[in-house]
């Protein structure tokens, strides 16, 4: 953790290098601008042979230091080709470069920090060490490249500002993987870089691509022949096979480079930490951690690896292709049959996974608690295999569980934070501690997290929120947020006179259960669907909503439909209060609900329960030009949020970053 700081400065270069790695496509102008600086900054320390520069586009208006060193640190052959492409790009984008680059750098560096926790979701997966890598890899560069190709065709430079901004966002998000101490993540990123370039090339032509890869490989190998063997061994757990399997030409060399460095640190965790910074530079080049599911190659690879059999989703919605497509329903029986064959998976984790899959457990807190309880059991039954270090092996174990859970259902942000907490605890364990003590301390850590960050936090939130309920109020809630339910029950118990409007929406209709429970308590309720929101809103005096996460620009990431309710409330001048535990806060910034979201089962929105005659969509999958979109989350801009009630009190949305800044550490260490 401590080393995080130093790494941060480095992070920028990494981003830049990303650009470098995917030169062919010559994507966002931003890359270009960034590359140079990176090169200048990072090349000396990296000690790479610094093969003749792939001159990064001369055209671009580079940050001052860059200009003298067109020689890029990375040994990428084929300068000629590159150059031409880049030049094109440069020509297109110079102004953009100017515009784009500054923002990029700042967010990226800032994000770094975030990354680590964020990484939990995407890069967590490294079940055998490498899985994470593989998954992650496809994310950024690949997709951007693809996009580019589609859009611009031959003209690499076609990429435009909007795109670049988009990419930035993704980078920021994904990047976190890097931060993870886990070596896997590291490797993964590396892979990413490679993958990215690969994909780009593929788009161009096979021959070209092949040539380029070969060249790269050669150059890299020459530069760094030493590390290969070491590196492989260094990879934790199953990483080794994975890497080899991937066997992409480009990749292996890249990995080799890191090999030696990684290996050494592995001896002791502290050492690793120390060594980190230099490596980090390198890593940072690598793109984003997040899996982009529109990258065919990545997906293929992930599929091969997957525990859960993945069907090809049909008729994907164009804008959401990068998200994991919904396939859960179909794999459920399949998974069930595998129950006894899955050796590595702890049964309790398996059970929780199935519950996620079937939707029996939903809601941020419930999922988080279920996951932690399963982990707790798994830790209880854990024993260190011979010849392995507990810290490392357990981390890998947890990672593999997490990647299994991700296959069942993508992680929520709150779960990512929780996992990050757990991994931090594991990493901080003293080496000398006996295994039994370690296990009991971890179990008590888990209990404490659940207790302090969820149970007690909820109580505090309720105490705060109840002060905002006056007699005669009409409170509106949407869906079935558990904190709000507790709040309403509590307010009723303390004798407040109020009425509740429960707004619900298809297909989940979670509000009905809430309605049932509240009515049973004697609270007078009104139930309606979100379609009637503008009618019902005028009699409402307060809107209480839950959240899956609150991001650091104040954006509330919550169940789909929340944004709609909040906006209508805002239009009616009704205050919107978000109840959210602070452990769900995240440093990420998100502007829309597109770049990160979860897709639900499209079938459920094609059917109307109880109306057999409404069967127009029965065979929708056969119609090629029909796509169904069932989103799970949406992002509510902070403008529509009057107040966020959290365990630290009642705050304006603009204070979320303050909490994140001041208490992140505390949250992690408890």
């Amino acid at each position, binding site marked *: 953790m401590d080393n995080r700081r130093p790494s941060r400065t480095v992070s920028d270069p990494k981003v830049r290098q990303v650009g470098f790695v995917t030169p062919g496509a010559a994507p966002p102008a931003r890359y270009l601008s960034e590359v140079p600086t990176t090169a200048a900054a990072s090349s000396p320390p990296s000690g790479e042979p610094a093969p003749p520069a792939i001159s990064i586009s001369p055209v671009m208006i580079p940050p001052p230091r860059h200009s003298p060193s067109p020689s890029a640190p990375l040994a990428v052959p084929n300068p000629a080709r590159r150059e031409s492409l880049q030049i094109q790009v440069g020509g297109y984008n110079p102004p953009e470069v100017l515009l784009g680059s500054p923002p990029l750098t700042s967010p990226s560096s800032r994000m770094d920090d975030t990354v680590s926790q964020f990484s939990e979701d995407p890069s967590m997966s490294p079940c055998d060490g490498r899985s994470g890598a593989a998954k992650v890899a496809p994310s950024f560069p690949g997709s951007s490249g693809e996009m580019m190709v589609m859009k611009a065709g031959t003209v690499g430079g076609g990429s435009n500002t909007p795109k670049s901004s988009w990419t930035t966002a993704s980078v920021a998000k994904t990047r976190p993987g890097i931060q993870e101490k886990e070596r896997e993540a590291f490797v993964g990123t590396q892979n990413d870089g490679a993958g990215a370039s690969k994909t780009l090339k593929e788009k161009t032509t096979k021959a070209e691509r092949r040539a380029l890869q070969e060249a790269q490989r050669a150059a890299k190998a020459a530069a760094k022949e030493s590390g290969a063997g070491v590196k492989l061994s260094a990879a934790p757990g199953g990483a080794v096979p994975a890497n080899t399997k991937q066997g992409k030409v480009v990749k292996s060399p890249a990995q080799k480079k890191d090999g030696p460095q990684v290996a050494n640190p592995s001896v002791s965790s502290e050492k690793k930490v120390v060594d980190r910074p230099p490596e980090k530079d390198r890593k940072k080049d690598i793109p984003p951690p997040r899996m982009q599911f529109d990258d065919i190659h990545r997906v293929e690879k992930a599929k091969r690896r997957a525990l859960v059999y993945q069907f090809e989703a049909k008729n994907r919605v164009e804008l959401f292709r990068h998200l994991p497509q919904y396939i859960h329903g179909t794999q459920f029986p399949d998974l069930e049959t595998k129950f006894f064959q899955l050796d590595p998976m702890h049964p309790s984790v398996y059970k929780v996974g199935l519950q996620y899959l079937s939707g029996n457990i939903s809601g941020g807190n419930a999922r988080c608690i279920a996951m932690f309880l399963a982990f707790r059991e798994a830790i209880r039954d854990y024993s260190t295999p011979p010849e392995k270090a507990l810290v490392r092996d357990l981390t890998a174990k947890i990672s593999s569980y997490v990647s299994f859970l991700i296959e069942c259902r993508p992680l929520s942000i709150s779960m990512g934070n929780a996992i990050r907490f757990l991994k931090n605890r594991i990493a901080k364990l003293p080496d000398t501690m006996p295994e039994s003590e370690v296990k009991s301390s971890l179990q008590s850590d888990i209990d404490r997290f659940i207790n302090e960050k969820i149970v007690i936090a909820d109580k505090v939130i309720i105490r705060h929120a109840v002060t*905002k309920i006056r007699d*005669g109020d009409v409170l509106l809630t949407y869906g079935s947020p558990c904190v709000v339910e507790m709040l309403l029950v509590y307010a009723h118990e303390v004798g407040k006179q109020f009425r509740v409007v429960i707004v619900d929406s298809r297909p989940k209709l979670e509000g009905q259960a809430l309605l049932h429970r509240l009515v049973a308590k004697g609270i007078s309720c*009104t139930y309606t669907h979100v379609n009637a929101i503008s009618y019902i809103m005028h009699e409402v*005096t307060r809107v209480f909503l839950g959240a899956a996460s609150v991001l650091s620009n104040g954006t509330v990431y919550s169940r789909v439909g929340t944004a709609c309710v909040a906006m209508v409330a805002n239009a009616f001048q009704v205050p919107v*209060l978000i109840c959210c535990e602070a452990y769900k806060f995240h440093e990420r910034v998100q502007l829309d609900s597109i770049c990160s979201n979860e897709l639900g089962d499209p079938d459920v929105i094609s059917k109307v329960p109880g109306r057999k005659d409404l069967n127009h969509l029965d065979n929708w999958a056969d119609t090629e030009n029909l796509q169904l979109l069932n989103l799970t989350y949406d992002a509510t801009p902070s403008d529509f949020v009057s107040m966020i009630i959290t365990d*630290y*009190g009642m705050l*304006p949305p603009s204070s979320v970053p*303050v909490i994140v800044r001041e208490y992140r550490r505390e949250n992690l260490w408890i």
Partner: protein
Amino acid sequence: MWGRSASFLLDKRLRDQHPSLSSPSSSSPDSTMDPNPNPNHGVSAYYQTRAEHHAIVSSDWLAQAQAAVDREGDTALMEGPHASAAVSLSASKPFSVIDEFNYWRKKPDLAEAVAAIMALAAVIRSCEATTMMELEIELKKASDMLKSWDTTSISLSAGCDLFMRYVTRTSAVEYEDFHAAKLRLIERGEKFGEISMKARRTIAMLGQDFVFDGCTILVHGFSRVVLEVLKLAASNRKLFRIFCTEGRPDKTGLRLSKELAALGVPVKLLIDSAVAYAMDEVDMVFVGADGVVESGGIINMMGTYQTALVAHSMNKPVYVAAESYKFARLYPLDQKDLEPALHPIDFGVPIPSGVEVETSARDYTPPQYLTLLFTDLGVLTPSVVSDELIQLYL
């Protein structure tokens, strides 16, 4: 519930069951909340103090003002208890925070929060506790008493909270000797009081930069901080002119305009309802604040909200001058979400029977209508207020 058309029968039934709901202003919240009520009911003590200060400084002028006649009477009435309090203090009867507080409060230039801070510092001094814990408990009791003395004053309770925070956060445990610790506390308390007293000057220095030559400033309400800013700007030979709202019902604008005129600043007086009319001539709006709340919004004299709304819609900046001891951990969601501070209004004519009068003396201005806050912590955007509060209290 108020102001929303109820389409639901249920709603109506509810209201029938609780008739008090339909007339919230009829029930006086003070009477329910106040363990040691202050003499005048129906009037916020905070506004009494203000009136008092005004009277002390400019009683000559107020005497001429027709409208201020009954205020004068009020003040005279108030003078009694205070005088006796001072006497009792000097007679060193059992120490009382309230008396001490009132003693400080009477000083015209001392804000209420600073008075509270001084009073609490005096509590430490006169405290006979022998352990840290005792002292803290005593201090807590005193501050609770102060707060309950006037529940409507935001700066009073904020000042008390801040003082408690500032004083007790010291690592008193470090001193084995209780007396050393106590001395340290007293020292801290006094230092805090000093800082608070200097706050106004700091703000004036920061704020006067925003006054440029030839600008027209609209000021609503009488605020000593705003006056300080304008004074400093005037003494720096800036040329500007002031529009003063009348500031009904206590005519605070008249007082401000008098002070400014004495400084040689051109002043024009507006009635409160002429704000929108005059706004297009105005370059910026200056207001003070009774309290700054967590959202970054302010609670201030009635009419601030509408002034800020008008300014916002005409794209004029609204600047708030407020000392940091007015930052309070409150978060009103709307106007009714406040402890109402009542202030009787003199309409000059008898009010027809059966007519209700809105007597609330202050309103809440949401942060989106404010441009900047001048505080002794620096010039802040509204969203930083919460940041500061979090750092202070958490």
